[in-house]
Structure formats: structure tokens, C-alpha cells
């Protein structure tokens, strides 16, 4: 469990992060989305016990940042932006070195190294120097390194960067497994599709958190939820516009091609009533689907608003 309250970090005159407050529960994947320089890495470095905050506080599984940075580092696994491997060492030697640094001893080192080489499907390359590895292979070893010591809290910076689609899916599936094991996971990414697929909640940040919510709730905030109704039959779609205008839960309607685009307050509850009303009026419906804003639209709108506000200042 991670609890962050009013976290701030200044580097001399530059404020990298301010007023950061959020929680990440056990068994939750929390995504941090933001442009370059938004403060994602600084936030993760503070929470991982690597750098001290200027102000504010956070607890990571009961350890405060100020008092327990070494304890926090011991229970934390971190996948850094760059794999940062030791090129002259083999994959196995790299992992064994980090296993020792994380406090593993004796046979536990070998067991952990073998297990995670298997998890990232790199067992057959275990005794090759990582200097000769492709970007994707290096990324896999870096992921294995972050997980070797069975951390309770995991920070992943662009976890599928450089991986082919199959390997990326393997990693996503494994991260989902970690969630089911009750680990608290923070994922920093620019990949909105990945954030949506992986994360239970997403925080969009630029110096501070602008929005925090589930991916679907964020999408609904992007623009009014709409339902697209495709029609088939002799009556044109325009003949139903007056009917829709009279329905209390419809906030807007327009004709598009052979269908209707209807704005609703709560599509989850109101779509059946909408369908009943249209069918009752003689409409022949071939499909109904909800259309929400994409996460990308929400992200760009939020980041754009902040950019404009900063420009005005």
C-alpha cells in the first residue's frame, strides 16, 4: 500500500513535483501518465527511497520515506527507464549480483535467478553477455532484475518498451499476475493503450496530478457519453429526432449517415430505455454501441489545458 500526501521535490530553483497526493492499494496497478519532464521519474525515485522529498510525506507498506528509505528499497522492485545492465557480465551474473544486493543468499540466489530467467523467457540466453543482447532482451533482463526479490511494491517505467507484441503481452500478463498476488504496482508510461489495458486507475500528471480515476471514468470525462444507433428500414433516421428530443434522459441527438448519435447522461442505465423507445416508434435497429472519448483525447485535453495555462502565465 502506498500513501502519498502533499509530496514535493525541488531541485535548486526548479520544482519538479508538487502537491502530489494519491494512494495505491494492495493488488492495484496505478498508472502515471504524463509528458516528458512531467515529474513521473522524480515521483517514483522519491517513493522508491532513492531521493528525499523537499516536502510532504509518503508511506510505503508502513515505512515512511524519511525514516525507512533502506527498508523501502528492500521491499521495492524498480524497472528504470534505461535497463542499466552490466554489459560485460552474463544475464545470469547480472541477476545474481542484484539478488545479492537485495539480500538473497546461497541457493536462494540461484533459484530466484533461474525462476525469473524462465518468467521472461531468457533461460537459453542465461550465460551470454548482455552487451550482445537486443533492446528487447535487455528489457526482459531488467524486468527480471526488478522482480528477483519478490518485492511488495513495484515501479515499472515503460515496461514493454522495446518488446515485440508477444513479449509485451507476456509482460502484461505477468504484471497482472503480480496484481493478483497483492502487490502494489505503479506503471509510468507514455503508451496510453498499455495504460488502459494494464491499469486499474490512472493519474495524469504534469508537475502534479491533474486527474486520477479509472480508465473508463477518465474516458467519460473526456466528452459527453454518446450511443451510436445504426438503423435499417424504410424510415430515415431523421424521422426519430423529434422523438428523442422528447425523452428526458437524452441530452442531444443528431443524424449521422444511416444512424443516430445520441448523447446520454448515463449510457449504462439509459441505453435500454433508448432502445425501447426507438423500437416502440417503429425503428429497425441493427446495432447499438457506446462511444466514449479515447484516453488519448482526455490526456491531450488535460495536458493541453495545462500547457495553455502555463503559457498565459
Amino acid at each position: 500500500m502506498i500513501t502519498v500526501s502533499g509530496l514535493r521535490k525541488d531541485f535548486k530553483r526548479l520544482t519538479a513535483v508538487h502537491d502530489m497526493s494519491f494512494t495505491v492499494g494492495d493488488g492495484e496497478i496505478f498508472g502515471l501518465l504524463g509528458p516528458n519532464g512531467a515529474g513521473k521519474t522524480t515521483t517514483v525515485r522519491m517513493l522508491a527511497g532513492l531521493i528525499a522529498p523537499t516536502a510532504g510525506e509518503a508511506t510505503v507498506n508502513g515505512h515512511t520515506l524519511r525514516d525507512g528509505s533502506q527498508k523501502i528499497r528492500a521491499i521495492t522492485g524498480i524497472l528504470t527507464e534505461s535497463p542499466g545492465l552490466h554489459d560485460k557480465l552474463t544475464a545470469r551474473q547480472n541477476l545474481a549480483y542484484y539478488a545479492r544486493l537485495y539480500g538473497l543468499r546461497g541457493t536462494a540466489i540461484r533459484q530466484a535467478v533461474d525462476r525469473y530467467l524462465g518468467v521472461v523467457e531468457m533461460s537459453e540466453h542465461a550465460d551470454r553477455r548482455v552487451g550482445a543482447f537486443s533492446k528487447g532482451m535487455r528489457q526482459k533482463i531488467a524486468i527480471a532484475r526488478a522482480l528477483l526479490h519478490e518485492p511488495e511494491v513495484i515501479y515499472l517505467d515503460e515496461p514493454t518498451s522495446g518488446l515485440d507484441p508477444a513479449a509485451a503481452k507476456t509482460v502484461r500478463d505477468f504484471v497482472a499476475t503480480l496484481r493478483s498476488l497483492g502487490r502494489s504496482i505503479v506503471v509510468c508510461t507514455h503508451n496510453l493503450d498499455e495504460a488502459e489495458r494494464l491499469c486499474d486507475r490512472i493519474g495524469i500528471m504534469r508537475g502534479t496530478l491533474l486527474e486520477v480515476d479509472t480508465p473508463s471514468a477518465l474516458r467519460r470525462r473526456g466528452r459527453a457519453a454518446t450511443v451510436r444507433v445504426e438503423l435499417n428500414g424504410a424510415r430515415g433516421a431523421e424521422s426519430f429526432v423529434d422523438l428523442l428530443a422528447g425523452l428526458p434522459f437524452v441530452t442531444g441527438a443528431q443524424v449521422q449517415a444511416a444512424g443516430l448519435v445520441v448523447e446520454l447522461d448515463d449510457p449504462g442505465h439509459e441505453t435500454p430505455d433508448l432502445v425501447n423507445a426507438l423500437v416502440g416508434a417503429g425503428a429497425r435497429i441493427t446495432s447499438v454501441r457506446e462511444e466514449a472519448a479515447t484516453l488519448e483525447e482526455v490526456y491531450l485535453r488535460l495536458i493541453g489545458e495545462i500547457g495553455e495555462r502555463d503559457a498565459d502565465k
Partner: protein
Amino acid sequence: MRIRYVLAVFGKEWRDLLSNRLLLGAVAFPALVFAAIPTGLVAFIQANNLDPKQLGQIEQYIANFPDLSPKLAAQGFIITNFMAYFLLIPAMVPMAIATQSVIGEKVARSLEPQLATPLEVGELLAGKTIAAALPAVAATWGVYALYGLVNGAIADPVLMRLVFSNVWLTAMTTLVPLICLFSVLLGIVVSSRVSDARTAQQIGGFVVIPIIAVAVAQFFGGQATFSMQQVLLGDLLVSGLIGVTVVIGSWVFDRESILTRLA
């Protein structure tokens, strides 16, 4: 400071060093060159009769060895005088290893993952320091032992006694490790400020200048080798420099500085 963590870093650095043949060559080559030149001269003198005129030119130097024959005194002067250059090995070699190590981590961006573990900065630096200093100390001691034995065998056992004198045994056991330590610390501090190993080594290379100056001054002063007082003074001086470098290093190498500037 936890020994287990220091040893883990040392082990990793050692593996890294063993896989770097160029760097290993940099450890062995200067040591062998510094030993081979005077040994060659001793062998040359041993194989040839010295011209009395030549002996007259080095009379000032061979006067350091009144109990020896002129030929043996000339050989004694050469082997003891060149030994000052042995101090260049602990000054140069660890610097090369340390700068390569820190700059290498900087380029590979591998400092952050290490500092994200329970490892403390002091343990990281201690492991690196030992790994960089040990090969240089071992190379210096190995070549020193070989130097004494080979010259003793080529010319006369008395040369061996000159090499293994109390003064030089003290210098080898105290001054050499201290110079190594200073060289490594300086290499690490300099590496934190520059972006490539060659520049770091060029800047750090200034450390050899005082040693060369001492060796040259010793030669022109007609002194065959160091006195015990000079060795102990050297110990004191280098210890002071180590203290200053440690203070500077602790400013430069706190976790946050490493992450924001180096990682």
C-alpha cells in the same frame, strides 16, 4: 558499512575487470616496463666491463654505496634509483580502473538500479575502490618481488638486499596502498565531473607529476633512494590528500547527486 554488500560490489567489479583485456594490459604493462628498464641496464653492466672514465662520471652516485665494488655500486644505484618509478604504478593503474568503472556505469546508466537496492553509496564506493586498488597493489608487489629476485640472480645477492631494504619494504606496505587509495578516490571524484574515461584519466593523470618530480629530484640530487623519513613523510602527505579527497567525494557522491547528475 556491511561487508557482504561491499564484497558483492567487489565481486561484480572484479568480473568486469577480468573480462576487460585492455584494462588488464594497462595494469600489467607499466609495471613490467618500469622493472624491465633498470633490469636491462643491470644485465648490460654485468655483461660488460665498465670504462673507468664512465665510472668517474657517476662517481657522485656510486658514492652512495661505499662498501660495494664500483661495478656493483653502479648496478645498485640504478636499481634503487629506478624504484621511485614503482610508485607510478599505484598512481596510474587504479586511476585507469576507477575512471573506467565510474564512467562505464555512467554511460550504461547502471548506477540507478544499484542504488535502488538496499546498497548504500559508501558500500558501492568501497567495493569499487577495493576492486580498483587491489590489482595495482598486487601488480606493484609482484613486480617488486620479481625485480629483487631477478636482479639478485643476474648480478649479486647484495642487490636483492638493496631492493628488499627496510625502507622499501615500508614504502611497499604503506605508501603503495595509500597512493592506490588516493588515486582511486581522485579517479572517482574526477569521473563524476566529466563524461568520458579518457578526459578523466588525463585530469587525474596530474597525480603522477609529484612522483616523477620526486624521482627526478632524487636523481639530480645524487640520492640513490628514499630515506625512511622521506617514506614516512610521504605516508603522511598522501594520507592528508586522501582525507581531503574523501571530504570532496562525500559532497559529490551523495545518492541524490549521483541520480540527478550521473545516472
